[in-house]
């Protein structure tokens, strides 16, 4: 029983990262209809910013998260405004192509700047945690989960309670109608992508705390973001939170299947994804639009 509880906790904690990775991806996909293959690269840029600030200035990694967010927002805004906006009216698959190209550019620029060394952020309190009998709750993943939830809540607030958020929702509902009521589409699109990038940056900061990063380390996260967003259901921040936590749980429980269960973690996750898509395309939490 204690083991089961521990696994649930580990799953939820792991899910924190997936929530952070998923919300930005889901926002860009849901609102702009862009499947952002450069998401993983944006995540890792956030990781490198956190690492750089931690190494050079000894800043606490969690305090660097706002810096990640702002820097990535600016980068994301510029990418959308300068590049991605140019193909918004092209067929869907073109966003695959374009963002794949962007991913290649970003990853290799990181490789030029930072080299291929593995970088990791390990603050003094890393590895420590609360203990309740045999159950352990480590600080770093716990704070990461908190940060991810906070990030999602902030994003939800922004989308539902602010002017630009309402504009973004209007775009998601009907782009052309949104333009008719006077929304500056180019700006709103860039803001949306910027927000997605900012979320990716925060996720990257958290990821630098749990693993060693290299310029190519972001690619798996693009795949996982897919799964998380679909599991939860496209179009709502809260759904992505559920999807991320569910994905963490699935992964941890797949790993703890005795024998070679854990090598099928991806197969199980994607199998589940296909199952969800076929039986309930709106996701666990989503509404059909």
């Amino acid at each position, binding site marked *: 029983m204690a083991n089961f509880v521990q696994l649930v906790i580990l799953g939820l904690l792991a899910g924190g990262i997936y929530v952070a990775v998923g919300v930005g991806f889901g926002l860009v*996909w849901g609102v702009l*209809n862009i*499947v952002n*293959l450069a998401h993983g690269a944006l995540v890792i840029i956030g990781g490198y910013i956190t690492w750089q600030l931690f190494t050079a200035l000894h800043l606490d990694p969690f305090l660097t998260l706002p810096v990640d967010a702002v820097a990535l927002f600016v980068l994301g805004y510029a990418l959308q405004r300068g*590049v991605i*906006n*140019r*193909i*918004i*009216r*092209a*067929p*869907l*698959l*073109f966003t*695959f*192509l*374009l963002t*794949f*190209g*962007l*991913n*290649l*550019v*970003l*990853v*290799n*620029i990181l*490789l*030029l700047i930072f080299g291929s060394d593995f970088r990791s952020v390990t603050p003094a309190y890393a590895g420590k945690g609360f203990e309740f009998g045999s159950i352990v709750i480590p600080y770093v993943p716990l704070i990461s989960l908190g940060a991810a939830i906070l990030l999602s809540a902030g994003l939800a607030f922004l989308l539902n309670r602010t002017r630009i958020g309402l504009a973004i929702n209007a775009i998601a509902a009907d782009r052309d109608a949104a333009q008719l009521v006077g929304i500056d*589409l*180019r700006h709103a*699109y860039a803001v949306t992508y910027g927000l997605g990038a900012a979320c990716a940056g925060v996720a990257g900061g958290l990821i630098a705390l749990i693993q060693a990063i290299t310029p190519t380390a972001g690619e798996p996260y693009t*795949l996982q973001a*897919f*799964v998380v967003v*679909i599991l939860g259901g496209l179009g709502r921040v809260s759904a992505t939170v559920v999807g991320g936590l569910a994905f963490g749980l699935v992964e941890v429980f797949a790993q703890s299947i005795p024998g*070679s269960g854990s*090598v*099928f973690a*991806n*197969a199980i996750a*994607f*199998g589940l*994804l*296909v199952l969800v*898509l*076929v039986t309930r*395309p709106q996701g666990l939490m989503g509404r059909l639009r």
Partner: protein
Amino acid sequence: MIATAASNRRRQRIFLIAGAILAAYALLAPLTSLDAAQSANVPLLADKFWFQIATNIAMFIVMATAWNIIGGITGYAAFGNVAFFGIGAYTTGMLIAKAKWPFLLALPLAPVVAAAFAALVGLPLLRLRGHYFAVASLGVGVAVGELVQNIDYAGQPVFGGASGLFLPIFRIDNRGLFFFYLMSAAAALSIAVTWWMLRSRLGYGLIAIRENEEAASVLGVNTTAYKVAAFALAAALTGLAGGIFSQWNVFVNQDNVFPITYNIQMILMALLGGTGTVFGPATGAVLLYLLIQFLGGTLPISFDLPFVSSDARPIVAQVILGLLLVVVVIFVPRGVIDFFGGRTRLSVAYLRRSLRETSL
């Protein structure tokens, strides 16, 4: 599908003839490497490295053209077609390495197994649309590779496991030539299938599905059957390429035959050349493959980058590749085949028009 004026027809014919000449050269030049040709003092026009390049190009022509059947003609953005390549490769690989079948007997089963698998997963998957189908097919692609690598029975890997499959080296004179022509035949087959499709009932049904699935169904198109047929056909061709690859490459494992990057590359090629057309994906495959090799510095025509150290050269090459993709996507949204079709000319006005059409 638009009627072209006479002058456009003429231009189109010129491009077709030029393409045919190029293809004939590519297919015949390797023959100059034969001993008989060499002893007759025929100049060497293509060596083993060029077969290797050309065989790879033919392989990508098959993959991109096959993807075009489901992704371009039917309009279902399949994102996991590499699964069929891998299944084809493993089918042939298993039959040769484990069951000791001869290669030419094992090869025909590669497309059959791949198509059967596609039909099986296609039934539920093809009910999904748009990005959902893309993601689900990607999921299948990832999951299949993982299962093939890790499935054990009684403690022993069923499909060679992580060590992969080593096939005996196919002993034949002029091995490189043999696989080049085999893969080229597969490429020609895939193009021929596409050409036939676009003139057949099947092709019209699929395009109707792409343009409006509901309208197609009330006009009597059995959409499920047609979509599954397109998916299976794409899978069969891709599986055939995989089957040839397995014996050509000798070594088969997950890294080799289920690379996720192929999913993206084959789509890139089809889009770059022009989706939904007969020759577009093949053109895209040739261009993108040569571009990648050119930037990698492996072609005879090479280039130097000023202010870039030799250490940074490969990295900068990747950055340039990425930038080129971005530029092409933005400025040539209908693929380069558009310039050869006779309807449009490459000009500043064309670039500006494409930019305006797709911009926000």
